[in-house]
């Protein structure tokens, strides 16, 4: 028996925007050691950062600022350290949100807008995630796999950020359901609530973190 590899340390940002238990438990079940970060201190010892969350962008940004987390998150991403934004955690990466006019982190060029021509809102349920290119985050997951969504808004990248798009999903019109730029990853669906395929995606993320932790320049963009 070989020794179990060290569990990558993942800081999950808690800014009061939703269900942390499920993401914590899902990450733990796929081999991560999870710390909940209510301020920037736990980031120092972390190998990766996960920003989950549901709800509106404005209050979420306020809470990130209040916890002095917005700037450390920007710096984390600027340093190309492993990052996964989930749902609102992806939307916050864009420059602003049409939902309440909030200014968000501004890491990706573009804005968060309401889903266009959606037959139901919120978009709740399992829908197909269709890749625009291959990426190790989706290793072992069929193209077009059903993953679980709960949202009414989605990030709309500007043309120059088109290269960041990793997958799209259709509800009325197609919207961006996954992005990847270097070690910055974001998904609009909830992998922690998407059954076996969701757990696979989180396991892939943990695997990328582990690889990245060993060789800082190692992960393909």
């Amino acid at each position, binding site marked *: 028996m070989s020794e179990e590899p060290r569990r990558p340390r993942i800081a999950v940002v808690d800014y009061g925007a939703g*269900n942390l*238990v499920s993401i914590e438990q899902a990450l733990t079940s796929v081999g991560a050691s999870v710390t909940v970060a209510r301020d920037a201190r736990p980031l120092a010892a972390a190998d990766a950062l996960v920003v989950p969350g*549901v709800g509106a962008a404005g209050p979420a940004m306020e809470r990130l600022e209040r916890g002095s987390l917005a700037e450390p998150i920007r710096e984390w991403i600027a340093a190309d350290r492993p990052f996964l934004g989930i749902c609102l955690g992806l939307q916050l990466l864009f420059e602003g949100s049409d939902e309440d006019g909030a200014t968000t982190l501004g890491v990706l060029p573009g804005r968060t807008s309401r889903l266009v021509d959606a037959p139901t809102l919120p978009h*709740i349920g399992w829908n197909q995630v269709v890749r625009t290119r291959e990426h190790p985050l989706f290793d072992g997951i069929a193209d077009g796999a059903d993953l679980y969504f709960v949202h009414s808004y989605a990030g709309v990248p500007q043309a120059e950020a088109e290269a960041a798009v990793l997958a799209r999903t259709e509800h009325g019109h197609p919207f961006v359901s996954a992005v990847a730029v270097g070690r910055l990853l974001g998904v609009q669906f909830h992998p*922690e*609530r998407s059954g076996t395929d969701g757990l696979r995606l989180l396991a892939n993320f943990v695997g990328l973190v582990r690889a990245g932790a060993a060789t800082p320049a190692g992960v393909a963009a």
Partner: protein
Amino acid sequence: MLRRRVIPCLDVADGRVVKGTRFVDLVDEGDPPELAERYAREGADELVFLDISAAPERRGTLLDIVERTARRAFIPLTVGGGVRSTEEMRDVLRAGADKVSLNTAAVADPTLIGRCATRFGSQAVVVAIDARRRSGAAAGWEVVVKGGREATELDAVAWAERAVELGAGELLVTSIDRDGTGAGFDTALLRAISSRVSVPVIASGGAAGPADFVAAVRDGGADAVLAASIFHRRIHSIASVKAAMAAEGLPVRHVPEVAA
């Protein structure tokens, strides 16, 4: 395309899954997290726990089973039954639920819907509407509360619209007339509500077989279909219900066969 969801509902009393016609003749049916995990494996798209226990220590017991379930079944979990405040909702969400369904408490104080939606987001707020067909000259459906024991004189369709305006992200619509009868969903009720709101409608009450699930979606306009006893008693599997829906051209999520 968004899949139509199939949702097993687990009635939970004092920490155990119970079966029987709702609220009477309860028979112990097992450990909620264990059943939840089984359903997740068998292709359930979500799970609903409906807490019907009466014991004063219910809250601790409920939070414990929610937490144990969230650790084992990685699909969305809605918890209903007895949530009366944002604090109680917070506790249930913190234990690992994704959504809370509000019923009697929302009728008693509709501002609860808005307060919960503001604090936790509309997506976490399901308003459960128990509706009974009006008899006599009055058309339509009346909202009933306290497990169907108390009439309110509220019109179910008007209440559905109001609940959405107040911040409900989903509606769980149960026909009290059909619940436990196996007479099929009240598709007229479902259509009356789904045609008036933009949020997803979950059909409940009356499922006997796969054809009822098809009708709830096609005739009732439901986005999701919930059932309890036909799954607990293994009369139909989630897979057979989904196969019937797919055969009728409805989009469903297929779950890979699990080796026996």
